[in-house]
């Protein structure tokens, strides 16, 4: 069986206060840092619904992707805050499908129009950087001392321009 068997099924669900517990649980095992209550309030913002999803594999929640919109001058950026898939479910294109979903949503977003998507990757995480580069992201710089409590402290900044659909 390959990851493309008809049995395997990837689906997405929007976030609500009811399934936030699942997001917390996933974050707690996926990421080495604890997210603030502000983070969890933000991802429930109805404006972000298209950009914050739970990822299901065979009806079991196995990952999340969460972004927020930022306004910089007359530009609107989509900031990819978190994306992660549980270890046993990796290498099955779940991350790619999740990212594609968000990218599609971004390009069909008109009010406001989204100019680019960007994110931070810890400089020890080469795998992640390559993953984003495969999806058309480019390194645009390094944010020094981005992580204060985990080492290494620096992070790459990766971004990709969004063209309207």
């Amino acid at each position, binding site marked *: 069986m390959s990851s493309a068997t008809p049995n395997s099924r990837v689906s997405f669900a929007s976030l609500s206060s009811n399934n936030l*517990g699942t997001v917390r649980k996933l974050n707690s095992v996926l990421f*080495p*840092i604890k997210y603030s209550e502000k983070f969890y309030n933000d991802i429930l913002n109805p404006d972000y619904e298209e950009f914050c999803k739970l990822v299901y594999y065979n009806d079991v929640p196995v990952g999340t992707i969460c972004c927020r919109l930022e306004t910089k001058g007359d530009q609107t950026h989509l900031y990819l805050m978190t994306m992660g898939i549980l270890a046993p479910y990796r290498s099955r294109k779940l991350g790619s499908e999740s990212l594609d979903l968000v990218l599609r949503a971004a390009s069909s977003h008109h009010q406001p129009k989204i100019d680019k998507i960007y994110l931070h990757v810890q400089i020890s995480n080469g795998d992640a950087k390559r993953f984003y580069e495969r999806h058309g992201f480019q390194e645009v710089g390094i944010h020094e001392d981005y992580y204060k409590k985990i080492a290494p402290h620096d992070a790459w900044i990766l971004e990709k321009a969004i063209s309207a659909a």
Partner: protein
Amino acid sequence: MSRVLGIPPKRALPLKEASLFKEVLTMYEARQLKKGLKTADQILKKFPEHGETMCMKGLILTHMGRREEGIDLVKKGVRLDLTSHICWHVFGLIQKGEKNYEEALKSYIQALRFDKENLNILRDAAHLQTQLRLYDGLVETRHILLRLRPTVRQNWVSLAVAYHLSGNLLEAKKVLEQYERTLKNVPDYDTEHSETTMYHVRLLEELGEFTEALSLLDVSSKSRVIVDKTAIMEARARLLSKLKSDESEHAWRVLIDHNPDCTSYYHGYLASQGIDSDEASLAILRDISSQIPRANAPRRLALSFASGDRFKELAKPYLLSGFTKGIPSLFADIKLLYKDQAKLSQIQALLEEIRAENAPDSAAPSSSTFTSQPTTYLWILYFQAQHFSYLSQFRRALEILDEALKHTPTLPELYTCRARVLKRAGDLFGAARSVEEARLLDGQDRFLNTKSAKYRLRAGLVDEASALLGLFTKKDATSPGADLEDMQSLLYLIEEADAQNRSGKINLALKKYIAIQKVFDEVEDDQYDFHGYSMRKFTINIYLNLLAWEDRLRSHLAYVKAAISASRIFVAVHDDPSIAASLASSGQLTDAEKKAKKKAKKAAQKVQDDSKKGNSQQSSNEDKGLEPTAPKDDDVDGIKLLGCSDPLERAAKFLHPLTTLAPQNIEVWIAVYDVAIRRKKLLQAAKALKHACSIDVENPELHIRLVHVRRTASALPQEPPVPIGPLFKESLLELLPEEVSLETFNSQYLQRHPSSQQAILAAAKVSQMLQAPLQEVENTLFAALGPDAKLDLESSQAILSYLKSLGSQRAEEFRLTCDGKFDLSTVFKSPEEQALLVKQALSVVIGYPDEVEAEA
């Protein structure tokens, strides 16, 4: 309501008033209550002693919500005119509204004496007779109705049904045949005629006239009579089988093709071929499976027939397909096979094998090729954990669950499974904590919400459970519990009652047990409307099933449990009325309870205010019906209930249906005995013990009663009168021969059951009853922890609480020993330790072990 001639003088009205009275009747029928009331008053102004008008006024007032006033008037009206069918009819309506069916029927019979052919009254009487299961009277009433209106189709069918219910199937058949002869030009696929015909087939089948039934079925299905195609096929296959016809095989096969996942069709199919060997069954099932590969039933059924290597061969793909599809209920399905020890072991071995083959690191995981999906492995672990939990290997089950949770921490089933394992092992707090973790993953899952609340109740956390239940109950209810009681949630009622009972708040427990009794009364009442509706709509077959189901209603486990537990409480307060008094004065309310009580009071006040408002608005035309609104509950905490003057009578009434509906349950008979012997119903008590003996003569609770009954008999102040006295004596001798002393009887019992903790507890209780010194009782009880004793959690708990109730100095020693012996269990922890566990169970936060704040 038609009037009759030959009017007695005090009923006669002058022309004007007579026509006004007719108007009152029409206005009532049209529910023009306000107008009707005005018109009735007009008559009463001139003829204040006119009984019929007074009754009508009373009836209208009752409908308007002025119940007491209305009923008074009706009663007065009946007294003023005892020979009026209207007065009796009205009185009957009122009684029916109060669900007092016996009295209502009496009133209707009175009304019929004075107006023999009143269709309305006859129909109502028939419904009451059905409700009361007075089938001979029902046949009579239905006969009159048919004679009066032979052209109304439902009158024929109703008479047939009445005969059927009274057990006279032959007459029922005759009536149906006569009825069918009167039918002309029935359109194709007429649902009423279809139902009646299927009922006719059923009747013939019950009479054993299978050939006739089959030919009626075949003729009717060919002539476009019967609508329900599946029902035709099923009846056909069943009848052909009963006729041992060669065609039956084909009939069953047709059904299998129609629905290949209905197990009973396969049983019919196999039986129709006279197959009794497992080998042959398996061959047939394999054939069907290959023809209908999507069907699950034949593959599952094959597992029941197969054994040895063959079983293994079949079980493996069955399990694997379940794991791949991710069927959460797979274990519940497979568990039924575990009665066979060999199959259990085979499955256990298979699980190891399948797990190894699907483990993530079995083959080097390269990114391009996967042998199996990760969820498959997850469901294997889930199943395996349930397997070991079933075998009471709790540590093993927990290890597997830990592994599964490391793999995928977001599957709620893993947490609920973990909770069940912990619960079985006696860690109720850990269990509550684990299931709460599951609930937090998905707040809108009501199943998880209910589970979490239930586990809190099991751990004695009643208020905390209520808080959770409140997330899903109506917001304007006086309390979550009140809403769930309205919704007739037996699960909630029984769990809350048991929780209160365990914590010694028997008043609150009893209140909930009685609420369960009420739910069953309501369900019984609810069938009333169907006596009319089903005959009108010709839904005869399902109606007959409903009546049969209602007759067995109280065999429901919730009723059985509630009746037994409530009767124990009633017996306890009978034996020691001071319990009720001390609970009443102890003011045991916690803050949350006080709050709930205050809220309930406020809500009740509001209801009262609303009804007052209704009273003051006399102009309202709103029909409030004839059923009384629930009276305000002035005994929210059940203290009055507990202190009632007739606890034993209430217990006896609660238990009574079970003597016929649950006669194989030994606890029922023991409870019946406990109540009967205290009510001085000696023969009833002896009979209950005899029943119990016939079920399990060695039952520990029964052992205690056998001693109790002998002691009660010898302590009787005087010989009971003939014939009770001698009969009672005789049955006692049957239960326990007189030459054995009770001490010997007890020690022999203990010798027969040296390893059973329950038997040891029973023997100790008997010793105590026989005034053995405390030290001796204690020694007996400590044998329950001896090297030969078979430990079980519940019995050990019972022994501990019995030791405490005796004021034994060794209770603490017993607790500590148990705490050491029961791995994982927390029930034997000290109160301080338990308080800490409670805190942990309630403070579940999903998050990180180490606190690191994110920056962004």
